[in-house]
């Protein structure tokens, strides 16, 4: 028995040691007590690392200045396009444990939360901060339901961009600065890359990245008006033009890496797009949104390591998405949250945020001075371009539509069955195309 007692004592001692050391480091991290709780503003995003985190940090520093009576609690959850974060958020909301603010894409994704009665009407906050005149009307429409505003947009991102590794393209004697005019031209270029010995000319990753590639193929092949019609019922998903676009998508996927289902966009980028040794580089292109420059910056690679142009066939179209922040029902600190929302909507906050995140400010009065090269170009484009929404990023439709399409694409990645994919897309559209009318 004494041997048992000694052993138990050893374990207890070790436990106590760990507990004490962990406890002391937790004091600095975890705000405790009810007094502190009212001062906390818990903000939930999926910007836990890289360029996106840098942007959030920029916004936080403005918050610390303007809302110094509150303490910012960063509840970011890592993972891709926010899949894991959204599930965690849904669980939390169901259990009545709402954060003080959470990130939601303006448009279809936000409408889910509005329809479920999970976010407050912040029209008053909006007007009080003078934000009702600060945003372009198209964007305001995406966050307003029945005259009430439900979130504050922080940025605008563009989804239909292709990022290019100039060294690899030069190896195949292609001009990296010249965008292919159509999807078919791009396919021809991909073939040239393959012939020149590049193993997987197109870097692709799982989930929303495949959806983005499909969407930009549809956008390039159908044109902006027909594309927009896909999301409000005007264009039929079973049309021959859609079939042709899906076949183009199939060809594009055939030029991509076989392990696409195992990695996220940033891993695919680091593995296939960025390596600079033309002898061993296995990728030349990646279709991804314009959060890429911030990511490359956070990896401390130079601007010269990549070039970019709008996805083939989509020049002049801005496929937009907008991260916005909400005031959830049941938030513990609504006043603190309102202060946060003001920061999010302010010119200063948006500049601090977008400068580092690679997106452009949502405010229409933002000027481009001080921004890096890509964003200056993007802001020009935003003023003049035609707009198209993105399903992958919540602006074109609700989360359920997004999920169904991603599931269908994951299956397609394995079996390349075009008719089945098209049938799934038609079914999804039939189910969700009238989403605007379900919001109330």
């Amino acid at each position: 028995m004494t041997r048992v007692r000694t052993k138990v004592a050893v374990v207890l001692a070790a436990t106590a040691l760990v507990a004490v050391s962990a406890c002391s480091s937790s004091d600095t991290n975890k705000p405790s007590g009810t007094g502190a709780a009212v001062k906390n503003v818990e903000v939930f995003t999926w910007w836990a690392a890289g360029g996106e985190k840098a942007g959030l940090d920029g916004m936080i520093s403005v918050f610390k200045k303007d809302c110094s009576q509150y303490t910012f609690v960063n509840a970011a959850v890592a993972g891709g396009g926010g899949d894991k974060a959204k599930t965690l958020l849904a669980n939390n909301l169901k259990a009545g444990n709402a954060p003080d603010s959470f990130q939601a894409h303006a448009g279809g994704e936000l409408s889910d939360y509005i329809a479920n009665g999970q976010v407050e009407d912040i029209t008053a906050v909006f007007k009080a901060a003078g934000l009702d005149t600060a945003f372009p009307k198209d964007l305001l429409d995406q966050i307003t339901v029945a005259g009430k505003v439900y979130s504050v947009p922080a940025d605008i991102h563009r989804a239909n961009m292709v990022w290019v590794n100039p060294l690899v393209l030069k190896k195949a004697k292609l001009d990296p600065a010249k965008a292919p005019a159509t999807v078919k031209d791009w396919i021809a270029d991909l073939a040239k890359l393959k012939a020149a010995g590049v193993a997987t000319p197109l870097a692709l990753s799982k989930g929303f990245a495949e959806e983005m590639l499909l969407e930009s193929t549809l956008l390039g092949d159908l044109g902006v008006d027909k594309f927009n019609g896909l999301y409000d019922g005007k264009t039929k998903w079973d049309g021959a033009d859609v079939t042709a676009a899906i076949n183009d998508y199939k060809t594009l996927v055939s030029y991509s890496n076989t392990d696409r289902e195992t990695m996220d966009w940033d891993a695919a980028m680091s593995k296939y797009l960025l390596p600079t040794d033309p002898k061993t580089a296995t990728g030349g292109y990646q279709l991804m949104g314009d959060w890429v420059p911030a990511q490359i910056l956070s990896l401390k690679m130079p601007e010269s390591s990549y070039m970019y142009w709008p996805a083939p066939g989509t020049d002049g179209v801005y496929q937009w998405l907008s991260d916005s922040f909400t005031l959830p029902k049941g938030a513990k600190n609504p006043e603190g949250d309102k202060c946060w929302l003001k920061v999010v909507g302010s010119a200063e906050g948006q500049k601090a945020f977008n400068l580092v995140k690679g997106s452009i400010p949502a405010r229409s009065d933002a000027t481009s001075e001080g921004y890096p090269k890509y964003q200056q170009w993007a802001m020009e484009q935003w003023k003049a371009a035609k707009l198209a929404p993105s399903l992958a990023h919540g602006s074109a439709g609700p989360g359920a539509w997004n999920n169904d399409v991603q599931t269908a694409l994951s299956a397609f990645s394995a079996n390349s069955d075009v008719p089945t994919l098209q049938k799934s897309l038609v079914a999804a559209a039939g189910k969700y195309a009238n989403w605007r009318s379900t919001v109330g």
Partner: protein
Amino acid sequence: MTTDVIPAAAPSELHRKVKKTPRSQVARTVKYLLLIFFLLVVLIPAYVLVVTSFKSFGEALGPNRWALPSGLSFEGWSAAWSELSPALFRTMLIAIPAAVISSMLGAMNGFVLSRWRFPGANVVFTLMLFGMFIPYQAVMVPLLEFLPMTGLGRGVPQLLAVHVVYGIPICTLIFRNYYQTTVPMELIEAGRVDGAGLLRTFRSLILPLSLPGFVVTMIWQFTSVWNDYLFAVFLSSRDNGPVILGLANLAGSQIVPYPEVFAGALIVTAPTLLVYIVLGRWFVGGLMAGAVKS
């Protein structure tokens, strides 16, 4: 069931005088080779964890992922520690009280169901045992709705409550088996003749004998609760939940920073591994309770 679980090989087997034919020599060598081979195979993940955790971030992405680190780097460890250490304390706050409370309840239940029975005791036991086998997803959605109604805070309080409740069946099973094999009915009878009631019998007769049982249930419960991911991920979040969620966050991020993630995995595993190494034979006792009836 005793707590000393895997008996040693019978001496007659160990020292059997087998003719030392070349064939049996080969058989012996093959046996040892196989055992050592499997030993190495089972240790592969441990090797990867330890070796990679001491590499620098750059080196971990280098060409030979299996090589030993060129120099000891603590980048991964310090990053993992700063991410996970607040949660370590919270996890202790869940695991230890849950183990203690479930064990107490298990001891009381085990005693009554084996040595102070009531009509229908077996039925009650079987119904309780079923609770150990259910997939907990079956109660997860109602828990999401019900727990907020109790007023228990999210994170430690809610997790402590559910782990106590769902730990009752296994602790009851362990103690019931234990008392059945170590407490003779005569002891109880003798106590009863002396006029002792249930509580007195339990307190003065049974508890002193129960330490081995407690060691088994506490270890088993501590390990189960510490390693739990399902309840943690549904009912809490990174800033109020156990350390496993911090690890999930590290592992779920971008280009996985392997040294940090693996150091984190080691940090998460260390307590239960320590318990296993130091108190291993009682750990096995918990395992056996689930299956063998002796």
